Structure formats: C-alpha cells, structure tokens
C-alpha cells in the first residue's frame, strides 16, 4: 500500500494503481474522453491531466497512466491543469462542433468555445479517442479498423478505406464510440445491419426467433472458441 494526497485528501492506495483509478474510487472526478474500463489506458485525449508533486519536482502527468507512489501530492484542479484541459476541450469543440457529448462536458466544466478557432466544416464527430480501434483489436480481437494518415489528417477507417473483409459486424466500435461518429444502420425487421460499408446478415434466435447477432460474428466466435455455431444461436435472453 502507498499513502498519497489527492486534492488535499489523504488516501491509501494499492501500489500499481493509476491516479485516475484511485481518484475515482475516492469520489474525485477527473474528466476523461478516451478512458474505458474494458481497455488499457491510452493517454491520448489529455483531459485527465493532473499536477503531481513528488519531492521537489512538480509536473503535469496523465492520470490514466501515471501510477501512485508513496508521498505523492496530486492536484487535479490546479491552474495549469485547468488551462490545459480548457484548451483540449476548446480544440475538440472546434473540431467537432456538432458533438453533443463535447458540448455537455464543456457546460459541466464551465468552458466556452474559443471564438478565434474557426469550427471545422467537415461535420465529422470523431474526436480520435481511439476507443473503437482499441476495442476492435484488444477486446474483439479482429483489427478490422485502424488509423490512416497522421496529424490533423489522421482518421479511423478500414484498411485502404475499402469494405472491410475482416469486420464481423459486431458493432462494438459503434457501441464504445462516445461521440456518435461511427454509425450502424439496422433494418426495420432486424434481419441485417450495415457498418463500415458492409451489410451483415443477422442470425435469429433458435428459441425466440429474434434477430440478435451477425452470422459472421457467431462464426468468428465459433472459430476462436471451438463451440459449434449452432450452439451459439441462442440469444442472451433465452440462454
């Protein structure tokens, strides 16, 4: 166990935990845009920055990655931290002016858009939090999407922006997408869904008959687990 202080509160935490984890356990709110419990931290959004003092040295660190240490003094709302967070959110508001999630967060944190930043016109809602790419690779194990280009041209897409061959239509990317950028269309009857340019045929539940999962996803699960597809063809409610 290590003893540290976060926002003047004395806290005991397990070694190896990150500042973000410990803060959350202790009811201290640190805003984040790229953090998800199912995923390893990535440190991309920079909203979770905090100021730490260890010995004589004070510095700004990423709380989702920085591990707690004995005697660490953490300030989650210092002037420097708030200034960096304000800029990050203002920059994202200018990038995705139509994102409801960003507007709500800005209101909560009392941050106004910076009038000097002309809002982007491309209607993209992607904030490049990378959660979709990380989910597809680390949770689903498929790697159907990734990044192309770099810098401000960077975007999430399938390889060569062609219809993905490896996508199984599971929709996990659309599910984790915090800004509603990734769209998944499902037909009225639910017999097919469209994502990343491909249409996936849905399987109906052997018991209740409801369409519940793409056939490609069940085939993928069957291949990785060895369970026959037929045994997987029962929806969660009927299992």
């Amino acid at each position, binding site marked *: 166990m290590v003893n540290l202080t976060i926002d003047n509160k004395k806290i005991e935490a397990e070694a190896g935990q990150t500042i973000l984890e410990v803060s959350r356990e202790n009811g201290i709110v640190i805003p984040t845009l790229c953090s998800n419990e199912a995923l390893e931290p990535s*440190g*991309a*959004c*920079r909203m979770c*920055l905090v100021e730490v003092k260890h010995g004589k040295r004070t510095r*700004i*660190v*990423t709380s989702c*990655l*920085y*591990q707690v240490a004995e005697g660490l003094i953490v300030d989650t709302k210092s002037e*420097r*931290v708030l*200034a*960096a*967070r*304000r*800029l*990050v959110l203002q*920059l*994202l508001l*200018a*990038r995705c002016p139509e994102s409801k999630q960003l507007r709500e967060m800005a209101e909560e944190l009392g941050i106004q858009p*910076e009038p*000097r*930043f*002309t809002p982007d016109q491309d209607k993209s809602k992607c*904030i*490049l939090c*990378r959660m979709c790419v990380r989910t597809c690779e680390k949770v689903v194990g498929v790697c159907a999407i*990734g*990044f192309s*280009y*770099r*810098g*401000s*041209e*960077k975007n999430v897409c399938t390889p060569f922006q062609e219809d993905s061959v490896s996508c199984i239509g599971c929709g996990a990317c659309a599910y984790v997408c915090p800004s509603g950028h990734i769209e998944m269309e499902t037909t009225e009857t639910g017999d097919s869904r469209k994502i990343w340019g491909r249409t996936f045929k849905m399987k109906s539940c052997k018991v209740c008959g409801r369409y519940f999962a793409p056939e490609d996803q069940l085939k993928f699960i069957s291949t990785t687990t060895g369970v026959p597809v037929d045994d997987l063809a029962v929806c969660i409610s009927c299992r």
Partner: protein
Amino acid sequence: MTTKIKSFDELKSIQERLKAGRDPKKPCITICVGTGCLAYGTQKLVDNFRAELAKRNLTEKIGFRTTGCHGFCERGPMVVIAPDKIFYQRVGLEDAAEIIDKTLLKGEIIERLLYVDPATGQKVTREDDVPFYKKQTRLVFGLNSKVDPESLDDYLAIGGYTALGKALTGMKPEAIIQEVIKANLRGRGGGGFPAGWKWDSTRKAQGDPKYVICNADEGDPGAYMDRSLLEGNPHLVLEGMIIGAFAIGSSQGYIYARNEYPLAIKNITLAIEQARQAGLLGENILGTGFNFDVKINRGGGAFVCGESSALFASLEGRAGEPRAKYIHATDKGLYDKPTNLNNVETWANVPFIIDRGADWYASIGTAGSKGTKIFSLVGKINNTGLVEVPMGTKLREIVFDIGGGIPGGKKFKAIQTGGPSGGCIPEQYLDMGVDFDELTKIGSMMGSGGMIVMDEDNCMVDVARYFTNFLVSESCGKCVPCREGVRRMRDILADITEGKGQEGDVELLEKMAAAIIDGSLCALGNSAPNPVLSTIRYFRDEYEAHIKHKRCPAGVCKALILYSIDPEKCTGCTLCSKVCPTGAAAGERKKAHAIDKALCTKCGACRESCKFDAIIVR
C-alpha cells in the same frame, strides 16, 4: 579483410602493417563524395580522375581516395591533394587532367581553383589554412576526410577499432560506463541526457535480452550531420555501438535509419558486413567471447519516429506513435525490454573517450557540456556546411569566423537552433557560448545541432509560421494538444501574415503555447510552441507591426506589401519588365518604369533583377 581477427594483439599488428604500407609522403588525391558534393555531379569528376590516372599509368604512383563529407559543402566539388594538402574548390568536372598534369606531376598550383578568403582577398593554398576549417576542432568529423567509407582497411590504418580492443580486453563493463559518465558525454540527438547514466540504468535493469539502438532518424530540415557521419565513417559509429553493447550487456543492436538516406544505408550495410567478416561483429568478437550483432531498420520518413518511444513502435512494425514515458526505455523499451538509444553522433564520440580517456575528453567544452558538437550551418550564410566546434564556442565565431557571415552584406537578424522545435536567437546573444544549458536558458535548444541563419530579409512571423507548419504535418496525431493545438496556432500565424491578425492574437498564442507544452504527450508536442514563443519573446514588435499596422517590416508577407518603382533611381533599362511574369512591371526604354498593382503577384523577380536598387517594397 577476409579472415577473422582473433585477438586485440592481432588487430594491432594488422593496424601496424596497414599503416606501414602507406607512405605519408606519397601523393594522394582525395575527393569528397558526400551527398552534397555528389549533387554537384562529383561522380563524373571521380570517373574522370580514374580514367586520366589510368591513361597516364599513374594508378600505382598516385593514390586516389573518395571520402565522405568534409563539411565545406558550399565550395564543392572539393579535391585535396596530399602530402601538402593543397585545397581545390569548386572544381570543374572536366578539371581532372589539368590537376594531374600540373599539380601532381609538375607541382604547379592552379590558381583559379584556390579558395579566396573573402575577408582578406588572399588566395589560400592549403586546406588547413582555410578559415572555415582553421577555427574548427574536427575531432569526430575530421576523420571523414581520412577514410574511404567503403574501406575497413582505411579505418584500421588510422587506428580504428583500437578503442574496441581496449574496452573488450582491458576494461570491465562497469569501468567503461564510469569512463563515459566521467567524460560527461551528453546525448547529441536533442535531449542532452548523460549517455553514461543511461548506459548504467540499462545495464542494471531487469530483463533479457537488452537492446542498443542507434537513432539515425535525423529529420530536422537542413540538418545532415548524422547522415554525413554514417555516410562518411560508418565504422566509427559501429565501433561506438559495439563498445556500448559490451558495457550494457547487449547482444543485439539496431540502426534505425531514414530510408531517404540511401548512401548512409549503403555504407553502413557494407561496414556491418566487413566488420562481421573481420570478427569485429557477430560471435566471439576479437576472440573475447563477446557476441553482438546489428540489424538495420529503415524508417519511412516520419519526423516523430526520431522520438524514442515512437521509434520503438516503428521498429516493432507498428505505427510510429509515442507513448507516455513514465517507465523509462532503459527498463522497458523495444519489445518492452531494457533498451539504450543514442543517436549517431553520440555513438561516434564513444571510441574517442575510451581511446584517449575521460579526462582528456572532459578537458574539451564547458562545465556542463563536454566534447565537441557538429552543427549544420545553413540559411543566409556564406559558408554553408557542417561545422564541428568545442562546446561553448561563441555563436558569433560560428556564424562570422567559420560561417563567413551573411551574403550580400545583409544584416544578421537571428539564428534558429535546435531544429523545427528549437528557437530563434537574436543578435544580442551572439557572444553566448553554445552548449546544452545556455541554449535552453534563452528559450532555444541544442536539438541535434541544426543552425539556420536569418538576415534582415526574413520575417520572423513568417519563420514561426513555417516551422509550426512543419510540425503540423509531422505531428503523429495521437494527442489532442499537439494534433489540434499546433494546427490552430499555425492558422493564427497564417492569419497574421495575411493581414488578418486580431488584437489579442499574441496573448492567445502565448496561452495556447503554455497549455500545449503542459498537455502534450511527447517531446514533439512539448517543444512545438518553441518557434512561436521565441519569436514572440525577441521579435514582438514584428508581430505587432503585422497585427496593428498591417505591415511586414521585412517585406516578406505578400498580403502586407506593395511593390513600386522609384522613378528617381529607375534608368529604364527594361530588365524588370523582361523578368516580370505577369507584365505588371512595364515602361518605355530609358524612361522610368512602373508596376501595375492589379497585375503584380509580388514574386520579387523585379527586385532581384534590378541593378539600380529602384524597386521599393513597402
């Protein structure tokens, strides 16, 4: 060299034999075939020399050597003739026969090929007397002109691999590290972190295998010292790496080199092959039982891959994106194993420290920065080239004594050091000694050693916009402050140069810069605001002139300037009307011309062509 050298003693005897076989009094023609000189077409000159020597049956009597870059790129193609070190510059591609017949056979000096010292107007015959070289300390880089980079024998003949033999047979790994710590060798790639401490941490780290890497992903615009070292003396870099690997306890090394450096990759590939065959690399090096080998990895040209964690990602086959470095690479670097990364120039310094000792090495330089540093001196400077000076040398000496000052008698305005994310240093600091700490103090940095000189015709807002734009294109795009923030800074700078700057822009830029420095994930983002901050710090008046008075004092920003012709000075020579691409500059012969503002694209061709200084830019 086809058989493996089995001991340090055998190495020494081979060195002696090679040295004895070389008569220092024998005439020898040395030609620089570094990338700069090759671009002048020097290969043709080399072919001509070979053909002319063969024609005269002189190939035995007269030595001929092609070498890597000598540094004085401004005056290439360059030929140096031993033993007197007669220095010919701007040699014509067809001059080979004349040089052989006159200088080598008759001892006559060809006056037209001599360098003229612009300060005195005197012709200089010997290389050592050329002011550009005279005031340098060419410790590391100087060896380039003594070896053919394709010849291991050349390197051995000047005592190459002695330091390796000494380290492997006479020193314990810990003692080697202590020597490097005592020498206070600091990383030449940018950060200036003490190399010895890094070696020590990697040696002590848990984990196996351990890797040593040579960072040859030099990406600063205008910087080419690492390229020239790899091209010109690959064995020196390799020797440094092998010593480091032995000290650290590593058996696998990598050289991460830019694919845009084909000659560097060719020469280091050959050097690795030669070293393997000679038993200097691979298994049982010099019969000591130490094993170490090196692989080359070619980078795709992303600037960010020079950053250590992005370099590891790229080497592992992933996209070159940095990660937070709360756990040091010395503990978890490449493939999460202990890794020691140093750049080309840092490795090249190692053999000198081991060979001549830490005390000798530490006697060069300043209190906090030891040894020499190679700078790439470019921009508005008479002697463009690579310059090696002791740490602590005054900027004024580099720019004026070695660099020969600014062309055209223009006034010095600033020198940009440290690459695109370095800072612009104004005239008031010209007498400052250049080392890691002094440069940081005044808002710039050493970086990898780029130096870009600017004169009165450079607009500092435009300069800031240029470097910021470079960093926008080179941001990896992972974290928000760098990806989005630097681009917004660039947009504001572009607005200012286009006359659309607003009151409060400078303050906003300063505020953004502070947040980007605090908020970015890696050193690229952390240092990206430097060009903006340093130009605001030292040239705030130029920003204000653009924003408040919609005026570009240097006459660079097209939206803020107008071209006109001074009727008093214009002689009606018609030259401007001939070079003007749009027909804006026009007039009758022998009568004052005028510029039609509606047609003028402000390209500046008229001003460059006018012999009477009659073009006014305001």
